[in-house]
């Protein structure tokens, strides 16, 4: 593309009143670029002005100096043009006022003592914007060669069926894969289920049969029972799936990555890529490499993971005090099976069980924790099963002893309704023992609502077992990905299928795979059905994005994707290892193979690459690096006491909006900081930090999202990786006699705009105390 530049500066919203427009306009003009000002650029007239230049073919790469790019993005959109927005409003004139930083007189402008910090910031931003325009290109979308819009659903339980129905109703072809011989999952084995609709008060027959019937009415739903996935290879839009019978061993079973201890030789030295690959093949004997495509595999566009859960094994939870070895002490799962058969009878002698105690927590050691994998669902199940007792026997009594009774949302009505049952008795408490007494059982509990020591007589005791997600035992998805067949971070979520829990609940760390139902967290049937709808919509979004070559989420619609300059690749594998989404598979030599539709365009690979060979069309090492270099760094040659200069690389997902809010609220902070928004802190290549310090900037601050177990990073790992990289750069700085404190890393949440000015000012002060960068002026 032959770029024709144009600069448009809006003088409205206080920009023209605060800034010296003549000086500002001079900057592009000196470069020979036409600069137009307009008092109301986002008005019809203002936009028409730009559109006219575009139509007359005068401009196709434009800089718009006005408001933040987070507003009016739809107004300043010109097809086939590069648009760079320079944030003069929220970034310059709103936070920094002339009351705080008075304009200079003509005399002051010429001396070497005074400088205008607001004007300097605005001029730097114009320069930075212009250089970026020069360095980036218009993206061309990636389109896969083969493509499928079919949706694969793993699991034929309520969630899987609901997702399949939702997708089928929207017009998509769906395949349901169910390991067992019939659809229905756990819900098919229930006597009754908790209510799924208003008034949420009574038990109802399981919805399973109705759903199975409905599925039979859809020819677009292909049901495969007694079937599982051997591997899912490729990428969204063109997943190549190999099916097999459960338990079967076939060459297309997914291989597992080498365990870490096998990645090194006898001397503890890391194996070279080829040796590692040989070892990998040896380790996975009988299974083909991930890059080997199954010629008989079937093509799918997206996958919904609804593999559900299994009842927890209570015998392994150290609860001998609850008499779990006694025949009449059963798990809630076993109780459900008894109830499904007919009236509740004691397993020991087949007599009616009219007094049943439901135990919700182990109650040992003063700990109020519930059993593993218990939650609101197990609370509600206890209520439901208590109702079975009063349903079966007029004189039935059901006791629920809990540490937590969780009935979220409208299920509170269910709780209220069960509480109204004359024969249902509930108390908080810790059960200390279950023992045989005469013909029945004796249950004792402490710390109850009825006093310190409570005793109950029971015919049967039911212990609340949790719902263990299928992902605890098995990767389930069996992805033929270099990073491994399952999700990497399930341990953060107690082995539930991971997802960006806070921001994007259905999205796993694997694009195109959407988890729903009890594999994500314990859910009721009602919740599972709703969750399935969410995952189905996500799967549809995925295929409808992949087919246009745009990113699915969170950068929905982004047409760029990582491009590699392979001649310089050293096969270090850092990109394949660090990509949070497993988008890159390296080959036998360790050369990365990109799978663009798996990619979320965060740029973590770009930040990782020590050779700096990864770039995006409009986001490159050079484009940001040049912006850094475009920042004017005044030295003693310019002023007697030159101002310090700082670089802030700010995550555009949460921190940058927060900074806009600072501007919106007209809160001042040091105007000596130049902000460059980045896709994610994960995309920050340390070369930018080195460049900044090398050209005399006094400090660099990285501002991004919170990481850790409850991370808010939109790209899961980005801010965490950035912090590691910043720590590593500290050593390099010391060797240059630069203080480590000159580079800082901070986390902010999107709603913490009020904290941001102090964070910035504190950093500026801290660096100020260190004195100016000794490299200044070199």
């Amino acid at each position: 593309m032959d770029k024709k530049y144009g600069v448009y500066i809006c003088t409205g919203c206080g920009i023209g009143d605060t800034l010296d427009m003549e000086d500002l306009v001079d900057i592009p003009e000196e470069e020979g670029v036409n600069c137009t000002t307009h008092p109301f650029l986002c008005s019809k007239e203002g936009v028409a002005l730009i559109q006219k230049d575009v139509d007359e073919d005068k401009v196709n790469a434009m800089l718009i100096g006005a408001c933040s790019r987070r507003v009016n993005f739809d107004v300043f959109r010109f097809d086939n043009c590069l648009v760079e927005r320079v944030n003069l409003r929220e970034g310059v004139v709103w936070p920094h006022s002339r009351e705080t930083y008075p304009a200079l007189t003509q005399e002051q402008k010429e001396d070497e003592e005074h400088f205008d910090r607001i004007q300097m910031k605005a001029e730097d931003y114009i320069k930075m914007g212009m250089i970026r325009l020069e360095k980036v290109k218009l993206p061309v979308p990636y389109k896969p060669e083969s493509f499928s819009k079919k949706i694969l659903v793993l699991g034929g339980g309520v969630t899987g069926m609901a997702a399949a129905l939702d997708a089928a109703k929207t017009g998509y072809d769906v395949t349901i894969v169910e390991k067992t011989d019939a659809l229905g999952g756990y819900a098919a084995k229930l006597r009754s289920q908790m209510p799924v609709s208003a008034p949420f008060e009574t038990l109802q027959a399981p919805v399973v049969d109705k759903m199975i019937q409905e599925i039979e009415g859809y020819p677009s739903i292909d049901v495969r029972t007694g079937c599982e996935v051997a591997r899912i290879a490729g990428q969204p839009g063109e997943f190549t799936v190999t099916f097999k019978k459960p338990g079967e061993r076939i060459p297309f079973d997914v291989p597992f990555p080498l365990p870490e201890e096998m990645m090194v030789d006898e001397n503890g030295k890391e194996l070279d890529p080829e040796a590692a690959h040989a070892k990998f093949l040896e380790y996975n004997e009988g299974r083909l490499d991930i890059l080997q495509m199954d010629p008989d595999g079937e093509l799918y566009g997206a996958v919904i993971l609804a593999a559900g859960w299994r009842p927890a094994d209570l015998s392994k939870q150290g609860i001998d005090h609850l008499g779990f070895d006694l025949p009449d002490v059963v798990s809630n799962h076993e109780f459900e099976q008894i109830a499904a058969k007919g009236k509740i009878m004691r397993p020991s002698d087949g007599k009616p069980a009219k007094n049943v105690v439901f135990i919700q927590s182990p109650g040992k050691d003063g700990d109020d924790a519930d059993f593993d994998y218990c939650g609101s669902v197990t609370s509600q199940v206890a209520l439901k099963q208590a109702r079975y007792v009063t349903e079966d026997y007029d004189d039935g009594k059901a006791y629920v002893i809990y540490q937590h009774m969780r009935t979220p949302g409208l299920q509170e009505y269910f709780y209220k309704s069960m509480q109204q049952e004359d024969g249902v008795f509930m108390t908080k408490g810790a059960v200390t023992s279950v023992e045989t007494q005469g013909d029945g059982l004796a249950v004792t509990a402490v710390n109850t609502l009825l006093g310190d020591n409570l005793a109950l007589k029971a015919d049967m005791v039911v212990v609340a077992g949790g719902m263990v997600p299928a992902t605890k035992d098995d990767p389930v998805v069996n992805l033929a990905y270099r990073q491994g067949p399952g999700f990497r971070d399930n341990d953060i979520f107690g082995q539930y299928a991971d997802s960006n829990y806070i921001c994007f609940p259905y999205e796993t760390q694997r694009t195109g795979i959407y988890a729903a139902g009890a594999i994500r967290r314990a859910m009721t049937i009602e919740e599972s059905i709703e969750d399935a709808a969410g995952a189905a919509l996500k799967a549809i979004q995925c295929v409808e994005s992949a087919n246009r070559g745009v990113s699915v989420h969170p950068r929905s619609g982004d047409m760029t994707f990582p491009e590699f300059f392979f001649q310089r690749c050293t096969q270090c594998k850092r990109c394949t290892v660090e990509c949070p989404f497993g988008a890159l598979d390296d080959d036998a030599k360790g050369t990365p193979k990109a799978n663009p539709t798996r990619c979320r365009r965060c740029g973590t690979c770009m930040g990782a690459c020590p050779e700096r060979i990864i770039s995006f069309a409009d986001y490159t090492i050079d484009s940001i690096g040049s912006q850094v270099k475009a920042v004017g760094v005044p030295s003693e040659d310019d002023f007697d006491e030159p101002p310090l200069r700082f670089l802030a690389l700010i995550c555009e997902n949460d921190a940058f909006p927060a900074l806009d809010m600072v501007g919106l609220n007209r809160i001042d902070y040091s105007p000596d900081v130049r902000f460059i928004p980045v896709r994610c802190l994960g995309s920050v290549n340390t070369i930018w930090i080195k460049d900044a310090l090398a050209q005399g900037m006094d400090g660099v601050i990285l501002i991004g999202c919170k990481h850790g177990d409850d991370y808010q990073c939109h790209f899961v790992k980005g801010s965490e990786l950035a912090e590691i990289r910043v720590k590593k750069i500290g050593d390099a700085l010391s060797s240059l006699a630069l203080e480590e404190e000159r580079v800082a890393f901070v986390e902010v949440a999107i709603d913490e705009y009020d904290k941001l000015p102090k964070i910035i000012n504190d950093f500026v002060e801290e660096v100020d105390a260190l004195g100016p960068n000794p490299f200044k002026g070199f």
Partner: protein
Amino acid sequence: MTETYLAQPDLGFIAQMRGLGGDTLKKCYQCATCSVACPIAPENSPFPRKEMIAASWGLKDRLLGSADIWLCHNCGDCTDMCPRGAAPGDVMAAVRAAAITEYAQPKALAKAVNDPKKLPWLLGIPAIWFAIFAYITMAHEDVMTKLFNVFGIAWSHAHEGAEHVIAQADFFSTWFVDLTFVPLAGAVVVIFFLSLSRFVGDIHENAVKEGKTDKKSIDVKAFLQALGRVIPLILKHNKFNECGTNQERATPHMMVLFSFIGLAIVTGIFFIVLYVFQTPGPYSQLNPVKWLANIAGVALVIGSGIMIKSRLDNKDQVTTYKDWYILGVVFSVGLTGMLTEMARLAHLEWITYGFYYLHLIAIFNLFAFLPFSKMAHLVYRTTAMAYAEYGNRK
């Protein structure tokens, strides 16, 4: 550690309380708003929260023998503030009704009093009883005079030379009145004595178990002293007034209580006047005792009338048969009494007798069923309050 409590929920008791107006007993989720809201709950083991959990579990043993249910004056603050729509006030009232039935003997009678289907019997039996003796009084004066002369007692309590005056004794002999009510009063006292001795034992045991008392046993003398300290407070309605929302209820309650006291005094005086001084009624309206009688009678009608009205107006509070029964009886006693007197003064002889007949039936209901009806609260609450005073419940 306290001793282990074996909880034995009683489904029948739960059903009983639902019937007695405590149908919200299962709604409680133990937030304790009620106990915080209650202006008179003691700090140590306050009510009605613990009563609510016990009620929802149907723990009859914990509730009926607890003095705490009687310390509640049913102001309804707890019910108003309950975030869950439960009505602890009504549940407490239901528990009290169940407790009265529990302690009263004979049980069948206690059950009948709380059963609207038995009302025709409760009214019919005294109606027949009084009809028979009215007939004897009027039709067989000669026989009775002879019969009494055998024992050397004068039959007639009529004024000498006062034939022109309407006297109830001409319709229904004073002898019969007293031969009905004096033994009845004796029976009531015996029943109460039996009930109370069990009741006091139970509330003491319960208080010891729940740590609500500092006494190990009942010292009769100290207990009576405590009773002596409590009675003036009851008369002044101190506790009643502590319940903020109760202030409107305190006045009519006080009117009814004091009118009963007034009428008891009047009855006592006239009893003595009749039997000791041999001066039969009716007495002059100028007599100060008669003033007291009239004031008390009016207060009884007005007080119980206000109570009925506020029950009708108050939609938040549950009013069940047991409440209407006792209010009806009290109001009828006052109203028929006053109407009898007015008809007599208006020289309407047969109307006077008619009202007097109804009056006797009402009084019979009041007295005979005192240990079984809600009226028994008079005795149980006083005892419970005396026990709380005795046991230093704070």
